[in-house]
């Protein structure tokens, strides 16, 4: 797994986000969601600042953060490979998809590739069971996958990135 480099957090940004929700204590989950949207994860510094603004003790902030599986304390890859491992996908071979990604990118579930391009994230159910096995990347759903199709998808995303970098 790659060494993680943390981002710099700006107090003003945090205050702005909290204000959007009128500094309400009850909106802490939504505030953290906004923070994550901005930074891609919830940096430790941001967590503390939110606590200070909303006047919530650190222990409680940490408790909320760690309770929900969608909050991340470490930076994550550009593409999150959400491989569905729900019931219908499970009986149609979702395990093979996960294995293929592990083998192809040398990462375990929850880890990032060294170049920070991919993160493997098995998820419980994406609700498109009729198209099992399926995966979702950047909000786009891919149905009726196979191990081979998974690999082509990874290659395609890699190529797109290279192409983007060239044009920049």
């Amino acid at each position, binding site marked *: 797994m790659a060494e993680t480099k943390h981002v710099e957090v700006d107090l003003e940004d945090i205050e702005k986000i909290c204000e959007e929700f009128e500094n309400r204590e009850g909106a802490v989950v939504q505030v953290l969601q906004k923070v994550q949207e901005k930074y891609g994860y919830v940096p430790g510094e941001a967590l503390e600042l939110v606590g200070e603004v909303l006047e919530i003790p650190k222990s409680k902030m940490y408790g909320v953060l760690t309770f*929900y599986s969608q909050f991340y304390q470490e930076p994550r890859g550009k593409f999150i490979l959400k491989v569905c491992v729900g*019931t219908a996908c499970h009986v149609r071979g979702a395990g093979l998809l996960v294995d293929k990604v592990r083998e192809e990118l040398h990462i375990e579930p929850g880890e990032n590739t060294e170049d920070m391009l991919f993160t493997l994230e098995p998820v419980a*159910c*994406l*609700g498109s*069971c*009729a198209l099992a096995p399926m995966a979702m990347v950047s*909000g786009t759903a891919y149905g009726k996958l196979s191990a081979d199709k998974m690999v082509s998808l990874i290659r395609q995303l890699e190529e797109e990135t290279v192409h983007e970098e060239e044009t920049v």
Partner: protein
Amino acid sequence: MLTEALEDISVASSKVTDLPVIHIGMATCGLASGARPLLELIRKEVEKRQLNLRIIPTGCIGMCHNEPLVDVTMPGRYRVSYRNVKAMTLTQIFDAHFSKNDFAKKYATCQIPVEGAEPYEGLTLMADLPFFKGQVKIVTKRCGMIDPLSIADYVAMDGYKALRKVLTSMTPEQVVDEVTKSGLRGRGGGGFPTGLKWALTQKSPGPEKYVVCNADEGDPGAFMDRSVLEGDPHAVLEGMIIAAFAVGHAKQGYIYCRAEYPLAIKHLRKAIDDARAHNFLGENILGTDMSFDIEIKEGAGAYVCGEETALLASLMGERGMPWPKPPFPAQKGVWGKPSVINNVETLGNIGHILLNGGEWYASYGSEKTKGTKTFALTGSVKNSGLIEVPAGTPLREIIFSIGGGMVEKKIPFKAAQLGGPSGGCIPVDGLDTPVDFENVVAAGAIMGSGGIVVMDEAACIVDTAKFFLKFTQDESCGECTPCRVGSKIMLDILTRITDGKGQEGDLDELVRLSMYVKSNSLCGLGGAAPNPVLSTIRYFREEYEAHIRDKRCPGTVCNELIKYVVIEEDCTTCGLCEPVCPSGSVTWEKGEVAHIDLTTCIRCKACVDACKFRAII
């Protein structure tokens, strides 16, 4: 004002139109099947042919196995539905409709009646397709038929009519009575009578009350609520506004939706904006003294938040842990005030019930479960998708008539898993079980929120039980010991069994622990966690014993227990299996029977799939 708001936006969507209309299924299942590039192709084709027509993206009509679906409605004719549409077929569909004044016979699935229009000859009506024949669509009536982003489409199909009726001619007590008469019970799986829930909240003292919509559909294998939210979001809003009126002028509503449903959230946001713009939400709704607004709260990935008290805790910015009842949410809910919490499908039914009457709704269904129920039919079944049937429809009819039977003709039905992680498996002998709250419980499962996963003989029952227990174990919030520790020990035993290290007495221990976890857990999650294990031991004890005593997995799923061998008599010495083996474990010489080295075999099944003669098992 009241009628103006309704007449203002009267666009006839299901009536005869002057322009041709193309509907394309753009719900999550459609998008995953390539509906987006297809929409681009349709646009290009329209441009190329210089056609003047309306393109309407719709929600899910239920035939997920046939996505992407494209419908063409010519002026004055019935709507023709095409399935699995690809670039190639698209040209032919356009040719048929726009050049030959006909339909593309080769690709058409069915036609859907349009009021006052002419049918085509030689094409089945949608209602006559086996998939739709046994279905009664109430809550999913508009899904796939209207543009979910258009409030005009919703209003054209009787939308907000029930709200107008309620606000102008009924008292809150009458609304509650009508819902009670309908016999509607909580569709999220709990089955608590909705009318009673509303009455309790109504009777709770205090001017401040809340309405909460539970859209945290977390059961793996279930997507009924997603389909309704994506395909008919206004129906849920209308249900909530009526609920707010009925419980005594609640001012604020919340929709708690899981973040895994980005499209549903997008559609809800648009629906709320439009409803506000047309004064169905906000101050003085439709000119009356009622004010009500709705806020969306996105979940953050915790299955237990589908439990109502955990949901409320999460809604208020806490860790989503359940609290022991009483107090019930009807007494102390959001911010400590009386709150009514209903599931998406329950709320989706409300408008239809108030428009057509409680008795009408109660005329469907079985003795104790009235009305219809939606199910997400998936797994090894031919027609997987979203269906809605009268409660009490036998499981056999759901799987074999509507579902079209097994996907692989040669592999027979083994069991159906109902109710997700809180449910259980029903075997062949239970196929005639009427699917309603009471009968499914008697058969050892639960109707739950409506997930039905069909399994064939190639599935492993022990593995399935392990799958569900692993899920609940992961999602256990850790508050109470029976659930947190009990489910972990049970999972360890199941893992041991599937790894080929099962011992005599393991089954008795599993049953003992199950009873303990069931009776001592704090909330429904722990209380139901052992169900998948108990129901499978009840019906498939032999399969467990095969794993434990013979170290054999009859479904060939459990990796550690699989030993692939080549059957000499069936092997044609073709050699197809050799090159596909990734670990080099298959050896083969021309004219010789292949051989598999089990010490290096990784059980990937590539050779089994490659063999055309079923000579490797």
